Structures are given as structure tokens and as C-alpha cells.
């Protein structure tokens, strides 16, 4: 009798949260299912495709030459932004965590304020800055791969996104560095490292999970970014996927939601696969880097 009741309660204890989670995620799951179904059909009625299944919606992959350019731009943006954020945040985080210098506290407080600054309010000012940078020879709009750092270049977008994401990155990295014991740092310094070597050869490898988390986070953010690239990139040749998606809706012609769904799915797939393999690391951000130490 007792035994039965115990298992009953146990089952209930797992069943209730499970059911709640299922109910809560249902709208999202249905959304995904709708996207997948509608990419293969002309129109849908609810979740039910109308007419024969078709590949027409995916024709942009071979008919629109811009799509691959845009995809490449998105990759460049995400990777560039990730490299920049990881490099700058880990250096700044190390300094803020390990070196006492005047103005350190003020700097930390300032970055927090910047972090809470909504990007939209800065758009016009940033526009002027980017226009000004465009006028600088070579650096402005004549660099390989990223195009430059001015207006209407992927590099310019990278720079702006980098600046907006740095406060979070710096704070995160500082948190990870704070968790590395001082003794290890001292051991490295006594064993013959300077600050730079201690950072690169000893501390960075120790907080590798934290670095991975930050890198994944900023890659995903870059991949899905819309507002900054949409605002500061004028033509489709330099555009990114999210802005390309938006352009499909902007035409005067009737909007084909099935095509939009297909492009959306196309944008989603890489990041989904990426997420599945890296979600464990991503959790480190929320664990506050507790896995970062020894």
C-alpha cells in the first residue's frame, strides 16, 4: 500500500512539471511544424497543406544569386563579431579581474550602464559616425572580406554590434576569471610568466568552457541580428539573412508566406544544428562560470 502511494507521488512529481512544459512549448512547436509544412506547399489551411507538395518555395536557392552572397555575409558577420568579442572581452575581463588600476570600479559601472542602453536610440548617431568612417581611405570601405568599417559594409555592422555586445561579454569574462584561484595566477607569475603569458597559457585554457559559451552566444546573436544590419546596409549585395527575409515582405507584389517560411527555415537550420551540439557549453553562461574553475 505504502509502496504504491510513494511511486504514485513520485510519478505525479515528474508528470506535473512535464505536462506544464509541454503545454507551454506547444505554441512554439506548432510554429516550427507550420514553417516546415508550409515550405513544401503553395498555401496552408491551419497546419494542413493545400494542393500538392512542391519545392517551388525553395527555388530561391538556385534562382536568386544573392542568397549565397547574403549567407556568406551573415557568416562573416557572425564569425567576425564572435572573434572580436571573445578577444576583447577576455583581455578586458582579465585586466578587470586581476589587475588593480585606478578607475577600475568606475569602468565596471560604466559598462553596466552602456549595457542597459537600448540600441535603437543610438541608430542616428551611429549612422553619422559610420558615414564619417566611410570617408577614411581604405579603412572606410576598401578592405577585403569585411568590406571596411564604414557605412554599408559588413565590417561596419560588425563594429557596431561588437560595441553593443561588449559590456555583456566583458562582465561575463570577468566573472569567469574571478573564479580562477589567485594561487594559480601566482604560481604562473612565479614560474616565469608575465601577465600576458599567464593570461594566454594558464588562465585562458582553464576557463575554456566559459570562452566557448561566450563565443556560441555571440555567434548565435550575430546570425539572427536584424536591426543594425538592416539600418546600416543599403543594398542587398552587402546584406545579411534577416534583412533579406524582411525584403521579401517589403515588395508591392503579394507576399508569399511560404517563401518567407522557406528562407526562414534556411536561416534557422545552421543555427539549430550548431545549438544542439553546443548547448551544454551555453549553459555555462547561466551557471556563472562555475565550471570555469578547477
Amino acid at each position, binding site marked *: 500500500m505504502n509502496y504504491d502511494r510513494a511511486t504514485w507521488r513520485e510519478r505525479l512529481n515528474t508528470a506535473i512539471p512535464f505536462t506544464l512544459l509541454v503545454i507551454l512549448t506547444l505554441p512554439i512547436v506548432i510554429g516550427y511544424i507550420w514553417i516546415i509544412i508550409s515550405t513544401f506547399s503553395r498555401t496552408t489551411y491551419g497546419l494542413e497543406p493545400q494542393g500538392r507538395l512542391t519545392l517551388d518555395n525553395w527555388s530561391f536557392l538556385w534562382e536568386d544569386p544573392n542568397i549565397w552572397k547574403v549567407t556568406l555575409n551573415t557568416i562573416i558577420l557572425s564569425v567576425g563579431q564572435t572573434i572580436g568579442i571573445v578577444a576583447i572581452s577576455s583581455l578586458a575581463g582579465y585586466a578587470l579581474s586581476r589587475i588593480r588600476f585606478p578607475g577600475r570600479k568606475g569602468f565596471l559601472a560604466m559598462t553596466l550602464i552602456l549595457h542597459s542602453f537600448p540600441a535603437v536610440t543610438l541608430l542616428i548617431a551611429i549612422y553619422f559616425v559610420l558615414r564619417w568612417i566611410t570617408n577614411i581611405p581604405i579603412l572606410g570601405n576598401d578592405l577585403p572580406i569585411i568590406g571596411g568599417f564604414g557605412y554599408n559594409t559588413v565590417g561596419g555592422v560588425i563594429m557596431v554590434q561588437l560595441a553593443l555586445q561588449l559590456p555583456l561579454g566583458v562582465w561575463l569574462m570577468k566573472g569567469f576569471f574571478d573564479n580562477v584561484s589567485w594561487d594559480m595566477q601566482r*604560481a604562473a607569475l612565479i614560474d616565469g610568466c608575465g601577465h600576458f603569458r599567464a593570461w594566454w597559457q*594558464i588562465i585562458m585554457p*582553464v576557463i575554456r568552457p566559459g570562452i566557448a559559451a561566450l563565443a556560441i552566444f555571440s555567434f548565435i546573436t550575430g546570425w539572427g541580428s536584424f536591426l543594425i544590419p538592416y539600418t546600416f546596409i543599403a543594398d542587398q549585395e552587402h546584406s545579411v539573412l534577416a534583412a533579406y527575409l524582411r525584403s521579401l515582405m517589403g515588395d508591392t507584389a503579394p507576399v508569399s508566406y511560404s517563401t518567407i517560411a522557406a528562407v526562414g527555415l534556411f536561416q534557422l537550420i545552421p543555427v539549430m544544428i550548431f545549438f544542439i551540439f553546443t548547448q551544454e557549453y551555453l549553459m555555462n553562461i547561466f551557471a556563472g562560470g562555475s565550471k570555469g574553475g578547477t
Partner: protein
Amino acid sequence: MEVRLENLTKRWGSVVGTEDMTLDIKSGEFVAFLGPSGCGKTTTLLMIAGIYKPTAGYVRFDGKIVNRMQPKERNVGMVFQSYALYPHMTVYDNLVFPMKLKKTPADEMKQRAHRVADMMGIGQLMDRKPGQLSGGQQQRVALGRALTKEPDLLLFDEPLSNLDARLRLSMRGEIKRLQLELGITSIYVTHDQVEAMTMADRIAVMRAGHLQAYCSPDELYEQPRNLFIAGFVGNPPMNFVMLEVSREDDRYYARRDGFEIVVSSERSSKAAGRGEVIMGIRPEDVTILPASSGEGVLGEVYVVEPLGRDDLVDVHIGDASIHVLADPTLKTRIGDPVRLSFNTEKIQFFDSETEHSLLWA
């Protein structure tokens, strides 16, 4: 290498780490910094290592001021309480890391690493990562890492505190033997007075940033300069009793309620006629006699703690409490009336206000 600290001081704002510390360490000497936690011993050690910059005073290596020298230029080896091994490197890589940074030739590096590993008994662990080792093994690797660079000075920051009691005992002996064999000048920070007493040639006792005493373990034990040292060094700790010493004819008496003993003149001449002084006597310098015997001070057994080889007996005399190390075969029981005989050649006296010794100050 000789080390000299001159008026060495470290402050953070108004917080004092170490204040005005001066001492000499001879080449090849093993010195322990002993004190309760927060007394500034690790701060001093880190200044010697070059991690902290002194606020005032000097650190000298072989007479040369090294205050501004970077840690990596000082050629010191350090062993930490938390081991501080590099978790992403194998034991071998940990051992050779300091040598790599010094650009030691590859074959010499390998040779030295293996020699040290054999010496420390970790030769079979070379390919493991620190996470796969036990605490004792990790500490051996940490010690090995400090030794492979052939330092001029070895620094130990409570290296045995994280080990279990048995391991601590054997590592204690090993470190002492190693230091003696290699002849490297060593500084050993500990709050464990047994470690300091058993290992060090000289002990620097610190309290609240100040150096209290700097002398050999024997001297520290037999001739404590003040009440703090007397109470801190020795286990079980010294007994303290407030009493008055008076001189009558040519004899000296130490008295309080229900307590009177005759003390030797050389020990008590300074204490006599001062009013209340503090008498100190170690538990092993008091003997329990049966209540029926004529001599000694009468008291009552309050608690008996068997320690194995001895019993630690707490005897109350009036409102004073005296701990005595007694032979377990005496079968002392709680509530028994007993008499205590004091070895008057071992009695210490301290001024009740300044807490300085009235014998050795």
C-alpha cells in the same frame, strides 16, 4: 641564498598586512613563519615572492634590494596550499613549465623532470592530468614543480593543510629531508605549531602583522618572550594562573586562594613584589600526586581526556584550572581530590599588563 627583510611593511589603506618586519635568513636555512590566520605571514611570503610590492622597507636577496624585481626574475619556487597545478597540463608538462619559460635545453629539461619525479615518487604519473591525482600526489607534483627550476629560494604556503593527518606527518618528514639534502634556503608559512617546531631551524612567530619572536624552536618553547608565544606554542597549551609572588626571608612564594608553592629565586626574582603576575606552566611540567601525599597543592579533578599515551587531566584549584598530562595507569577519575606538584624549574612569569615575560624579556 641569504634573505633579509628590513622594516618590511605592507598596508592596503588602513588595513595592515605586515608591519615593520625585520629578520635575517641564512643561506640554506629552513625558517617557518608561524601565527594564527590573518597574522600577515602569507602577505610577507608574497612580498618575498614578488607578488606584492612592499609599502615600505626592503627585501634583500644576498644583500641586493629586490623590491622592484618581477616574480619571474627572482628564481624562487613556491608551493601552495591549493596546489595550484595547471589543470590542462599533464604532470610532466607541469613539471617542465617553469623550465620551458627559462628556455632550458630540451634534454636537460627532460632529465631534470624525471630526476625530480623519481625523487618525489611520482614517476609513474607523468602522463596524468592533475584532476586524476589524489591530494597527496598533487602536492608532490606541486613540490616537484617548485624544485625542477632549481630555485635559490623555496617558499611554502601552508602546503600540508589540505592533506589528511597521516599524510601530513609523512610529507612533513619528506620536505624536511629534501630541504636538508638540497640545501635550498626555505621559508615555510604555517599556522600549525607542530609543523613549525618539527621542521624549522628558526621560527618567526607573527601576530597581527607584527613579528613576536624569531628564534630556534627550543628557545621558543623554553623561553617564550611573551604571553602570546607561550600560549600559542605547545600542545596542549601552557596553563596560566594569576597570582602574586612574594619574597620572605630568602624564599620566594607564589600564592593565590588555596594555592601556595615555593619557587626558585632565579625564576621569580623579577616577579616578586609586582602585585598580580601571570604564572605559566606547561601541562607536562605538572605531576599528579595522590591526595594523601603530604606535598603539593590540593585540587579536584574536573575532566579527564584520554589522549592514548597520556591523559589530559583538568584539575580545579579554587577558581583556577590547570591542565596536567598524567599517566593513564593512575586511573584518575572525575571528582577525585588530587595534589599537584609543579616543576619549578620550568615555571614562567609574565607581567599581567604588558604580557611580556619577566624571565626572558
